[in-house]
């Protein structure tokens, strides 16, 4: 990403410009592109209320897929369904089919703990544990049986480097993570997720609580990780979606209205609703 990009990100946050942003051409990822997550007539309910309606979509591996749409349209609900985070809400249930690597996510025999290990998640508000930086990163590996201190140290360093945080915190790994700045905390959360070596990374508005500078860093990070992980990012910010993603899904009132390559969706939307939304006629 260039300095220009960063500047425009700052501007976007500050003035909420309504111009359509034309995304740049993006290189294809070698070895990627197989359907990693597949939704077939997939609906999600809170009690009687249908929050996500009969979604059909293939999410392609190794690419970045953005989910946009107005507040309350079901973006988070859909994202959290993929690693079964919605299990925490007792009233929440699903119909239709959702597959991960060809396996039924909501199948009777599916182990949601194993699933979550493979599908990591980063939340809107940075949520490091009230533990040391080291213990935060090592939490996952320890959980899955790693006890050797050397191995742990190696994986902590690797994860922090991947999350572009190593240089900033390498000298204070034993300090409490809550002492970090918001942006650092969010990258720590990414690193924590990477430490369990997931296949998919779900990001739910990861920058909405951050200042522009920290936002830029996270966006850079997503670019770094593109190609190694399948990434899905929910965002309110269309500029962000166009900057970081290869594909974009537009949700409206629980329905998947349009799903296309990002460049195409932003330059040449097929649906009136999509066009209205990206041109800022409603939000």
């Amino acid at each position, binding site marked *: 990403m260039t300095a220009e990009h960063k500047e425009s990100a700052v501007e976007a946050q500050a003035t909420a410009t309504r111009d359509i942003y034309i995304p740049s051409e993006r290189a294809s990822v070698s070895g990627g592109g197989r359907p990693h997550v597949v939704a077939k007539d997939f609906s999600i309910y809170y009690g009687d209320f249908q929050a996500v309606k009969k979604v059909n979509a293939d999410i392609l591996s190794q690419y970045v897929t953005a989910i946009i749409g107005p507040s309350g349209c079901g973006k988070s609900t859909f994202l959290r369904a993929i690693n079964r985070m919605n299990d925490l809400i007792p009233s929440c249930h699903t119909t239709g089919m959702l597959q991960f690597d060809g396996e039924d996510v909501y199948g009777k025999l599916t182990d949601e703990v194993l699933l979550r290990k493979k599908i990591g998640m980063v939340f809107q508000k940075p949520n490091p544990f*009230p533990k040391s930086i080291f213990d935060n990163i090592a939490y996952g590996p320890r959980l899955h049986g790693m006890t050797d201190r050397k191995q742990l140290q190696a994986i902590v360093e690797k994860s922090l480097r991947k999350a572009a945080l190593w240089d900033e915190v390498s000298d204070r790994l034993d300090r409490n993570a809550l002492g970090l700045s918001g942006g650092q905390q969010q990258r720590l959360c990414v690193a924590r997720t990477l430490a369990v070596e997931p296949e998919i990374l779900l990001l739910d508005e990861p920058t909405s609580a951050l200042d522009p500078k920290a936002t830029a860093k996270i966006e850079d990070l997503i670019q770094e990780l593109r190609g190694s992980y399948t990434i899905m990012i929910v965002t309110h910010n269309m500029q962000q979606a166009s900057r970081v993603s290869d594909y974009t899904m537009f949700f409206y009132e629980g329905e998947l209205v349009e799903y296309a390559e990002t460049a195409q969706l932003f330059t040449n939307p097929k649906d009136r609703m999509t066009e209205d939304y990206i041109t800022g006629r409603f939000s």
Partner: protein
Amino acid sequence: MNLGTRKILDNSFTAVGMGSIVVMALALLVVLTPIVYNGVGSVFFTGTIEHRTMLYKEFGRGDAKAIETQTATADRYRAEAYRMLSDFEQEMEGMSLEASRQYRSKYAPVRAAMSSLLGPLPGDPVPMLTRFQYGQTRWEKAEEKLHNILYEKKWDYSDPTVMAKAFDVPRAEEFAGTKLAPLFSYAERHLADMMQPQFTVYWGFFTDRSLDAHIFGGIWPEIQGTFFLAIGAMLFAFPLGVIAAVYFTEYAKEGFFTSILRSANSTLAGVPSIVFGLFGLAFFINTMKVSESKSVLAGALTLAIMILPTIIRAAEEAILSVPKTYKEASLGLGSTKWNTIVTVILPAALPGIITGGIISLGRAAGETAPIIFTAAVSVGSAIGIADVFSSPTPALSWNIYNLASEHEMASEIRHVQYGMVLSLVSIVLLLNLSAILLRAKISQKLKG
């Protein structure tokens, strides 16, 4: 509302708030001052030679040489008083029958008061009870007894239609002209010589066993019993309470059964403690037969049941106040629910859980009613850790009550009672203080 009234309202609220804080502080002061003042008096006081002799004979402590010389001096002065007594006794032999009878009935209280001040008089057999084997061990008590020697408290019953008034009659007048007459001024002049008062620091009050039902000695068995009971109750109630709280907050499905459990828990928290005492007797001792008689174990179990609701509630609050995001983060990393609870939720909730626990610990230490029928005895020696399953124990809360209301010599040993109260208050304060420190330390660690 205009600015003027708003300001007046604000100011008057501040004034009322400050006022109530001051009132509370004053009330606390009024309650605590006598406790501290009198309680400290059980350790720091002016002791007489009788106190030092008692300590030496009963506990084998003290400076034998110094005691010997002081006793010798005291005995020199006492001998003079004893001589006056025996002279008078001889004098009475020679009196007319009527006169001697009159004097004898007046003399008996003098003799009793002397023996109460100085211990057994020459010629008296050694009493069986330790309490009568020594004179007054505390100077202020000695002065009180001197007053009993010098004056007879009489009531004027001449008019049966009004309540009588008390008046003091100097005994020196009653025995004027006899060989006993000089005793009174002698005793007054030489009280200090006969008693050898000395500033005394009696740390043994906290570490000695009690002697002759708390009349002498210390309160160690009570202190130890209090710790045993409180800590024992904690050992049962804390893990159980935390597990129950985890169940309520993380596992229980909202429904009829859960709401029944919840309201049972709240109701239990409001049940008077004597009910727990009776329950403990009926259930743990008579039904379960956890021990043959009252025991620390039965008492600790009863106290545990009593504090359980408080611990559950505190732990529930603490767990619920842990941000949901911690749980999401942990589950998102592929952690199981149980693992999340143990490694993330409980550590984050720990300060709140511990606070609830230690407040309950203080309550367990202070409660009387639950242990009356299950663990507490008025007299018993300090027990070893191995005996907690079978032996009952004295405990501060119960023995304070016992000394205040049931002890046959309650008015003579108020200092012991105050010493126990101060010890109990200190223990509870200490526990609460350590709770605050521990909590601060853990919170600090969590905050980073």
